[in-house]
């Protein structure tokens, strides 16, 4: 049903909570000097948002705010994922040495604002709302990247991010303007009807518009060829923010990408497959993008010495694996993508967390810091990082394997043999660089004068939780699968 503004608020509680919390933190920060507990407020807020999503009234779908926002199970899935990402990011920030040095109030307020933007990205039903939410997330991310006052790396990363983001989103809006011109409306459902109308549309123009829009969405998801910014920004930004970008904004990017490309400009057939616009070869384009993303991500990561940069390329490659589900044009593929994104969230957050722990203790992010880590008191983080990296490789009994298994199963079901083979070979190659830190930690001898690693209980608990989740969900994945299966419902209700 099509709700007015006030009626929609009923379904909008988590977002409202986030807004009020952001404002509250800004006000409190003005009044009080010492903002130590502001982090706790942010943590409670994001956790509260997660709870509220759970508590929301079950409904098979609704338009909110006069068709600007759509509330359906697909949106719920991503809001849960993003809320989890926010919880992890804030939890890490409270334990991070870097964040402790910058202004707490501004930091946490902007993080919550960014979370809000991601929520909106996941549920936007209108080109305008898509652009607006994307810009909110981008702008907040530029600031968060550059939040470390006099740190050259962070400043430079923020500048690059800003310029790249600006150009990419500008290109996107230009593309959207053409699409608006063709379809005559900003609303996804209207665009869909216009594109599939009997009179037909100029395919070349639509293709150009899609390519330009893809620049914006591709940049957000950091898929090749719009990934150039990612390695530098991931390395420059403080680790909690890098994590937030890697798991939060990337998930939101996938949500928007899926909502735009699937319910937006293609049609669901009866058998669970999707058909794209005739003459507009965006599926083939994205297939090529997916293959290059995987291969380039893995190849470039082979010789990285800085762990953050290695994880940056690894997250590009992981985006490639998730795209594998996306390009299959079938519900099975999308379900596999959702499972993969959830798996990616757990293992990537864990990996960045351990990198942060080591960075906190040694202040270094290169492989040297990890040499012989297991033998000088760092056995637990070493084992945890090993679990996360093996999960990223796709070794069984971890959630990473379940994710990869589903994506390959879907690819083979849809007869994309070459794609499955390339994916498989990529995961074998990825073993080499995922194993290099593990080899350094376990097989290498600690450098002389390397002191043992001290881990605060705060980070220890999160690490334990994520490691347990990686193994437990790897051994018993049905809950994740059921959750993904349930949430593949795009509301395009007529009323």
């Amino acid at each position: 049903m099509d709700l007015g503004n006030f009626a929609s608020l009923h379904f909008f509680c988590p977002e409202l909570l986030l807004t009020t919390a952001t404002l509250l933190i800004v006000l409190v920060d003005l009044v009080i000097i010492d903002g130590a507990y502001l982090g706790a407020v942010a943590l409670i807020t994001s956790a509260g948002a997660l709870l509220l999503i759970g508590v929301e009234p079950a409904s098979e779908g609704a338009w909110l705010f006069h068709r600007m926002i759509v509330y359906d199970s697909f949106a719920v899935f991503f809001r849960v994922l993003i809320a989890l990402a926010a919880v992890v990011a804030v939890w890490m920030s409270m334990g991070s040495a870097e964040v402790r040095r910058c202004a707490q109030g501004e930091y946490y307020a902007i993080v919550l604002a960014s979370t809000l933007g991601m929520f909106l990205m996941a549920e936007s039903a209108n080109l305008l709302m898509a652009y607006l939410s994307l810009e909110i997330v981008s702008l907040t991310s530029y600031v968060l990247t550059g939040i470390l006052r006099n740190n050259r790396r962070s400043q430079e990363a923020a500048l690059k991010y800003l310029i790249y983001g600006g150009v990419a989103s500008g290109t996107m809006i230009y593309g959207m303007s053409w699409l608006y011109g063709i379809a005559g409306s900003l609303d996804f459902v209207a665009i869909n009807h216009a594109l599939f109308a009997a009179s037909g549309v100029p395919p070349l123009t639509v293709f150009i518009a899609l390519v330009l829009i893809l620049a914006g969405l591709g940049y957000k998801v950091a898929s090749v060829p719009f990934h150039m910014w990612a390695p530098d920004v991931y390395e420059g930004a403080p680790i909690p923010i890098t994590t937030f970008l890697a798991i939060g904004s990337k998930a939101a990017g996938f949500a928007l990408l899926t909502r735009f490309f699937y319910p937006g400009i293609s049609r669901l057939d009866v058998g669970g497959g999707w058909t794209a616009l005739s003459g507009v070869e965006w599926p083939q384009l994205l297939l090529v993008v997916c293959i290059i993303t995987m291969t380039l991500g893995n190849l470039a990561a082979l010789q990285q010495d800085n762990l953050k940069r290695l994880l940056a390329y690894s997250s590009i490659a992981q985006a490639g694996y998730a795209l594998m589900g996306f390009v299959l044009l079938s519900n099975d593929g999308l379900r596999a993508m959702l499972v993969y994104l959830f798996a990616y969230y757990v293992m990537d957050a864990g990996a960045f967390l351990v990198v942060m722990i080591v960075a906190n203790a040694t202040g270094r992010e290169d492989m040297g810091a990890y040499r012989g880590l297991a033998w000088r008191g760092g056995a637990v983080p070493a084992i945890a990082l090993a679990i996360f990296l093996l999960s990223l490789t796709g070794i069984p009994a971890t959630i990473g394997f379940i994710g990869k298994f589903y994506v390959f199963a879907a690819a083979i079901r849809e007869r994309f043999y070459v794609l499955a083979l390339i994916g498989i070979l990529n995961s074998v190659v990825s073993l080499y660089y995922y194993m290099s830190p593990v080899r350094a930690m376990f097989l290498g001898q600690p450098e002389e004068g390397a002191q043992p690693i001290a881990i605060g209980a705060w980070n220890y608990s999160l690490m334990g939780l994520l490691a347990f989740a990686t193994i437990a969900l790897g051994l018993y994945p049905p809950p994740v699968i059921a959750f993904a299966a349930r949430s593949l419902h795009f509301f395009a209700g007529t009323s």
Partner: protein
Amino acid sequence: MEHPVTTDLVRWIVLLPLLGAAINFLFGATLQKRFGKRVISFLGCGAVLAAFAIALYTLFAMLALAPDRRFMLDDLWRWFDVGGLKLDIAFWLDPLSIVMVLIITGVGGLIHIYSTDYMHDDASYWRFFGWLNLFTFAMLVLVLGDNLWLMFVGWEGVGLCSFALIGFWYTDLVNTNAGNKAFIVNRIGDLAFVVAIYALFAGLGAVGHPTLVIREVARYAPALAGARGYLGLPMVTFVTLMLFLGATGKSAQIPLHVWLPDAMAGPTPVSALIHAATMVTAGVYMVARLNFLYSMAPATMLVVATVGALTAFLAATVGVTQTDIKRVLAYSTISQLGYMFVGVGVGAYAAGVFHLMTHAFFKACLFLGAGSVIHALGGEQDMRKMGALRHKMPLTFVTFFAATLAICGVPPFAGFMSKDEIIWRAYAHGHFVIWALLWAGAGVTAFYMFRQVYMTFFGDFRGTPEQDHHVHEAPSAMAFVLVALAILSTVGGFAMLPGFIAPFAPFERFLDPVFNSDATRQVFASGLHDRSLETLFAGLSLLAVAAGWLLADLTYRQGVLSAARMSEFAGGVFYRLSFGKYRIDEFYRAAFLAPYLKLANAAAWFDGHIIDGVVNFAASMTVVGAWLAGLFDSYIVDGLVNFTSKATLAAGGRLRRLQTGSINGYLYGILAAVMVILLVRAIARV
């Protein structure tokens, strides 16, 4: 063959030596340390002699049975039952195997007793008796095995024991090399043996009776008559030929005889027991046991006879020039085995087995006599440093001389009855060339045997003074054994008198039930049975022996002819050939061993470098993306070996350089990407 008497006594003949070996191996060292060597010798000899007693008892039990029902079966347990191959661990006793058992346990027992004195001052005394007992066990399994695989277990078991006993004094590498050589050459023979069994099993399976139990094979053998075999030969011929090739390995016939002379590196009782009396005769026993198969393959019979004759003659010629007392006897053994193979090769199986028995007696006596001489001279084995020992060692001399007369075939000694029977049978079955070889061989045998006697016991002592001082007669145990064997060598011959003297041949009659397959009877009947011709040929062979004896007497006892001048005869080529053992050892090493070692090293290098390099290449498929870039610099720098892992890493490195860090570069990335996409689409559309 049909309804054997089931018994559970035969198993003890086999198990007692095994028990002896087990106790010696496991507890021998401690027993010897605490209670001295008496316990070991009591245990070792006791086990074999007890087996001998049981064997005697079963012999009488068998004689009590009707002649055509003298078969006993002792079935222990199911060995394995897989895909039509149902075999039990079972021991089959029939006249042939009881004869062999009696030889093994009888002569073996005597040699055990002899060893108690001979090895008396050797530290690992217990290990020697352990291996001797294990050898007796393995030989008994070979002889009593109910199926071909159990026979093969014994077959290789004796190979193992001969390896261990040849290399008994393992501290000196020459002995261990001899041991290795023996085992590996035997194994080459065993390869043919095993291939024959596979072919036989396949052949029998094809005609519907897949079995390897010997008596069942005998029952279904006629069905194989027409079957096609391999290498273009009929099945029966192929199987028997391969089995014979296996026998040449074990019984040291040409071409696989090279290991026996080197086997003399072992202690003398070992040479006597294994390389004279029992193991080397295994080949003859096998051919006799499978007579029903061999008789169906005349071609193989001819091959067996010819190889036997050739070996007999050539080995004898080599024996003539040897100077080591044991090597002479070794070549003599090879030669006598040649005779036995001729016997079974022409179809006179009984004669072959009879010669096997008599040979066991006199050859064991000769070896033990030589042992006593070596023992007396403190390990000296070179005949040129001996002489005039008959005064100091009369008993050894007398027994040695009696055995020499036996081996040369001088009546009434055993050799005359057995060897001449074979020589006659050779002619009787129409093989004139083979007869000639055997006849000449008999002469040469006489020459080298008497040469040995004269060089050792006659003339003047050529050894060192303290050797001369140290010489003493054989101690009591050795003396008793020598006498016993000498008596057997003289009396043994009467068990089977040649036809022209008297129709008295109980030995042959005793073995008839074994050789009663109609093919065997038909082959045996085809020979001549002319009494007068037989007496003529007996005279002829006696003539050859006399000639040989006279020649040896003239050169070595009376010194009328000088051995040296004889060796230059015809430029010394014959001498060099004979002394150098026809260069067969060197030929094998050059033709087979050296190239194989080179090939093995090449394989290892190939495996380490090429396979590793190529497989790494296939394993790390990441080359696809960066083929050109990676190929160029890494190939030049590292070459093929680590080419692939370098190419992968280079690919990563190259992609990193794209990330220049300049923002303008990145923005170009967007523009370039959009342009490329549109370009590709335009091209694809057209």
